[in-house]
């Protein structure tokens, strides 16, 4: 064997030294994988979530529990068929410690599968599919948003309290819509109401005319709906154009009027919806958050920014409990489970299934804002059916 020359020996030792330094550095950082929509329909939501997350990290001086945060980003394209592949990119290629994502429930299911298989920590900052913290729940899967069931169930209670006896529901024929309608039905019927008809249209079509005529003919006391985005805009406008507004009260999950008020215009005025966030909460925490967000991004925050912010808070709580050591997994998870998150929406804790136990607000559309009216359900926990944690 040839003897190594002095220069190459030096070079080798330098390389070894550099590697050990890099090793030391890497244990000083936490790798956060953001898998969010950065293109397509939900792009703005993805950006708001990332902004919220980074805002909290920035407020802590750029580190959580003394650990620098290193970000890795993947655009999930809101494409369920690429969910597993994209999540694997972050887990296998970038070796992230924690996955944050996403908006679309179908994609989040793929992420949950990857998280389960690889035991990677996952924090979901939006997707509301009931099953993720229901029958698919896992020790390493957390959510900072809601289940589709939560706002809907609360609205069911509200509609019954408002002395409505019968209601018709209308939504897109897809998981989120169906879960939402089920939640409403459960709340409404628990208090003596009766859902007389469940109408649906295929996703994402917005041709409501035949069904609006049907609602008018059925003459229910109330209508409950789950639509979001362009479909929500169209539905609220069509409902008014059909002359139903003011005759049959329309209720919805908060997504009906979140981010859509500008486009809905007058047709939305007075609408009542339920969500875990609202305009005009006017708590010190919320005021501080809104000010800080507006200053940093020159944008008004929304519910998605809040959920992103809370994802960072939840991670921070876990890290703090583990003294910044990601390898103390049990302690870290326990820390997250027991955390009381001081959210702009109001403080919340996690249910056994790792979903927020939170107040659901009743909001009313006034001057293009979803103004808080009252608390529709206090400390509401998702029933987490099928979860064995």
């Amino acid at each position, binding site marked *: 064997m040839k003897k190594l020359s002095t220069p190459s020996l030096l070079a080798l030792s330098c390389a070894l030294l550099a590697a050990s330094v890099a090793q030391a550095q890497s244990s000083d950082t936490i790798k956060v994988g953001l898998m969010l929509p950065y293109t397509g329909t939900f792009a703005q939501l993805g950006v708001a979530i990332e902004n919220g997350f980074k805002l909290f990290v920035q407020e802590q001086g750029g580190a959580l529990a003394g650990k620098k945060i290193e970000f890795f980003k993947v655009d999930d394209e809101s494409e369920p068929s690429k969910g597993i592949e994209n999540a694997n990119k972050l887990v296998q290629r970038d070796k992230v410690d924690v996955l944050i994502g996403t908006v679309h429930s179908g994609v989040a299911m793929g992420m949950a599968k990857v998280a389960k298989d690889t035991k990677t920590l996952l924090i979901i900052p939006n997707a509301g599919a009931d099953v993720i913290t229901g029958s698919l729940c896992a020790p390493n899967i957390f959510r900072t948003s809601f289940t589709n069931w939560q706002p809907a169930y609360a609205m069911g209670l509200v509609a019954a309290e408002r002395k409505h006896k019968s209601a018709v529901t209308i939504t897109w024929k897809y998981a989120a819509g169906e879960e939402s309608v089920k939640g409403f039905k459960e709340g409404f019927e628990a208090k003596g109401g009766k859902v007389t008809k469940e109408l649906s249209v295929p996703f*994402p079509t917005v041709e409501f005319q035949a069904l609006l005529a049907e609602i008018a*003919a059925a003459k229910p006391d109330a209508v409950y709906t789950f639509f979001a985005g362009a479909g929500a805009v169209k539905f609220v406008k069509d409902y008014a154009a059909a002359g139903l507004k003011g005759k049959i009260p329309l209720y919805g999950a908060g997504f009906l009027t979140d981010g859509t008020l500008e486009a809905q215009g007058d047709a939305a005025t007075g609408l009542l919806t339920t969500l875990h966030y609202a305009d005009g909460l006017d708590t010190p925490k919320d005021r501080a958050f809104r000010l800080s967000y507006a200053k940093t991004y020159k944008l008004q925050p929304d519910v998605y920014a809040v959920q992103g912010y809370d994802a960072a808070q939840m991670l921070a709580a876990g890290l703090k409990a583990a003294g910044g050591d990601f390898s103390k997994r049990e302690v870290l998870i326990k820390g997250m489970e027991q955390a009381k998150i001081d959210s702009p929406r109001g403080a919340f804790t996690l249910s056994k299934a790792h979903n927020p136990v939170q107040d659901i607000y009743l909001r009313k559309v006034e001057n293009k804002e979803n103004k808080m009216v009252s608390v529709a359900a206090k400390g509401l926990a998702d029933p987490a059916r099928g979860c064995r944690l």
Partner: protein
Amino acid sequence: MDLANFLIQLLNSVQYGLLLFMLAAGLTLIFGIMGVVNLAHGSFYMLGAYLAWSLSAQFGSLTLAIVVGAVLSVIFGLALEWLLFRHFYQRDHLDQVLLTFGLIYIFEELRSILWGDDVHGVTIPELLGASIPLTENLSYPVYRLFMAGVCIALALGLYGLISKTRLGMKIRAGAFNREMAESLGINIKRIHAVVFALGVGLAAVAGMIAAPIASVYPNMGSQVLIMCFVVVVIGGIGSVRGALIAALLVGLVDTFGKVLLPSVAGMLVYMLMAGVLLWKPEGLFKQ
């Protein structure tokens, strides 16, 4: 179902049926006259909807957007015919299916590059935004009546063109016997280009007027294409009159199905098609 609701649903059916007719007429003409199976027909509908959205944002007027969009789409149709389709008239149907199936993907990709993947709404013009109170509880949007009006006007225009004009006579002659017509000095190539562009224009205009009520989204063409094929098959391939009757029939079955039998509504139209084919294997009006 009370009478008022019945009448309103009838109105909805007719209006939906007329829209389907505009699409199916182009599809059946292109097949009947040129013998081309055009799977990309739905893409022209999508093109129209996206044109309506982007042009109306540009001009601030949907009416102007429809006029300009119609002209643009006819030019697009002529270009497409000249570049691609004319080379495929003599090929067999499998080649045509492959060509037009490929075009669907190309158009979707172009749409994604040009306009993105978002779902968009198009605002109904102020003038047509009102509603007419029909029953104590329900008003009917004027825009829908306007839509039906446009469809009827175009259907009458199409009928007039084919059965009453010189051009229409040449079209019919070309469809009936190409060699004979050519030997009589009719320029079949030009006729084909005109018919193709007409079909593209009809589909695009349908997309444009439907945009405000159906919204604008990726893959919208494929959904409507299936309905169009159902209409063409029920009506009898190549028959414009058959397409009209079949479109109204499909409109009725689909609308009332959604209301009366929501759980099986998606299937009813196909059951109708199967039923018609059992009874008349060549469709209601065969060429």
